[in-house]
C-alpha cells in the first residue's frame, strides 16, 4: 500500500488528536506504519485544529504538514466554511464528515471522490452524553477506508476509551452513509 495522507479538521475539545493517535496505535498494532502530527495553533476550546495522519506499509519519512491529502476527516461540519478545510484534496480524494447536511450544503469540492457522512455528534451524545465525536467518527473511518483492520480499531478504542466509545464507533460503522461516490 502506498502511503495515504489524511488531514483531520476539528475544533479544540473534540478530541481529534486523541482519535488520530489511536489510529496510529491501531495501525502499528496491525503491523503497519503510521504517523500523526497535530498542528498547534493557539489551541483553545472551540478554535479550529488540524492534524496530519499518515498510514503506509513502508516506513514514513516525511514529517511535514499535508498539502494534498488523500482523505479528509472532518469532525465538525461548520469547518467547511474555512478555505483551508478542503484545500488541496487529491483528485478522487475521500471525505469523511460528521454532518447531516447534503453534499450541496457542504459545498463538497469538485475533485472529491467518495464522501461519507455520519451524525457523529448525535451518536456521541447518545452514548457519552457529550459532543465528543472523535471515537465515533473513527467508526465511519473504519468502514470507508481500509487502512486499519476494523476489529483492531474497535478494540483499540475500547482499550483506551472504554466500552461506550466502542459502541459509538460501532454504531457509526453501521450508520455511515455515502452521499457521493
Amino acid at each position: 500500500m502506498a502511503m495515504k495522507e489524511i488531514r483531520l479538521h476539528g475544533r479544540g475539545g473534540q478530541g481529534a488528536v486523541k482519535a488520530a493517535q489511536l489510529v496510529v496505535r491501531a495501525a502499528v498494532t496491525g503491523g503497519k506504519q503510521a504517523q500523526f502530527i497535530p498542528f498547534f495553533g493557539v489551541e483553545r476550546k472551540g478554535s479550529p485544529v488540524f492534524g496530519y495522519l499518515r498510514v503506509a506499509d513502508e516506513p514514513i519519512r516525511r514529517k511535514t504538514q499535508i498539502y494534498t491529502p488523500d482523505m479528509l476527516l472532518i469532525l465538525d461540519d461548520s469547518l467547511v466554511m474555512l478555505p483551508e478545510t478542503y484545500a488541496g484534496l487529491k483528485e478522487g480524494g475521500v471525505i469523511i464528515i460528521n454532518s447531516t447536511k447534503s453534499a450541496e450544503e457542504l459545498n463538497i469540492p469538485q475533485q472529491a471522490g467518495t464522501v461519507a457522512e455520519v451524525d457523529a455528534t448525535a451518536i456521541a451524545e447518545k452514548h457519552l452524553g457529550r459532543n465528543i465525536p472523535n471515537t465515533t467518527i473513527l467508526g465511519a473511518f473504519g468502514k470507508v477506508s481500509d487502512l486499519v483492520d476494523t476489529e483492531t480499531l474497535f478494540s483499540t478504542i475500547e482499550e483506551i476509551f472504554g466500552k461506550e466509545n466502542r459502541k459509538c464507533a460501532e454504531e457509526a460503522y453501521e450508520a455511515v452513509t455515502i452521499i457521493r461516490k
Partner: protein
Amino acid sequence: MSYIDVLREAEDQVTPGASACQGCGGELILRTVLQIAGKNTILGVPPGCMAGAGSVGWNFNSGVRIPVTIPLLDNCASLFTGISQMYQRKGREDVNAVIVAGDGATADCGFQSLSGAAERNEKILYVCYDNEGYMNTGYQRSSTTTKGSRTSTTPLGSVINGKVQHQKYVPLILSMHGLEYCATASPSDMKDFVEKVQKGLAASKKGFAYLHVFSPCPTGWGYASDQCIAVARKAVKSNMFPLWEKDENGYKINKVIKDPMPIREFVQGISKFKKLTDEQIDSIQQMVDTRYAELERLAGKE
C-alpha cells in the same frame, strides 16, 4: 462611585472574544484590573494563560485596546522598571505601568526580578493572578500550588501523591520588601478587589504596589465552569486565601472570618484535590492556621 458602578461604567479594555476557558477566573481578573486602570495604561502580560488567551494579540491584531507587551516569563518587573522610569522621565506620571502575571511568572521564574523591582520601589502595579500552577503549558506545579494537588508534573502516583511541598506564600514575602502597597484579593469579593486595584494604582504613583489575586481555574483544577466564584468564596471563607493588605499603616485583615470553613470542606468537589489523604488535609489545615495566626499577629490582633 460604588464598585458596581465602577464596573458598569468603565470600558472593557480587553478583546471581547478572548480564548480563556469558560469560567476562567483569570479572565475576570484581567478585565477587572484593566477596566479600573483604564486607557492611560501600559500593560504587560507575560507568557501564561492570559497571554495565551490572546491579550497580546496575534499577527497584526492586538488583544487589548491599550499598549501591551509580553515580557519574558522571567523579567516582567525589570522590563516594566524601564518602561515606568522612562515615563517618569518624560513627565508622564499619569501613565500607569501595570503587569498582570501568573503565579509561575511571579513566584518562580520571575521572582528575582520582582523582588529587585520591589526593593528599588519602582512605580509599578503588579497584579499576580494565582491559579496555582503553570496552566498555559498544561498545568504543571508551581511553587504556589497547594500541597497534595494533582498536576501534570506532580501526578497522584502510587508512591508520591501529588505535590509534596506547601505553597509559597508570595504576598507575605512581598510585603516584607517594604512596598508602597501590598494586598490579597479574590474575585469572590469584588468590592474589596476593586478598591484594592484603585489603591494599588494610586500607590503605584509613589512606588511598588503588589496585588495577589486568587484565580480559580476550572480546566486545571477540575470543577464545573460555573463554580469559579463559589470556589473563590470558599477559599476566602476557609482562610485558604485570607484577604488582607499592608499599607503605610501596617497590616490589616480586611475580612475576618468568624468561623472558618474547614479545609476538608474547601477541597470538596475540586478534582485536583480528589485523592488528598487525611494526613495531607490536616497538614494543609495546619499550614492555613499557622499562616493566619501569623497574619493576625502582624495585624496586631493578638
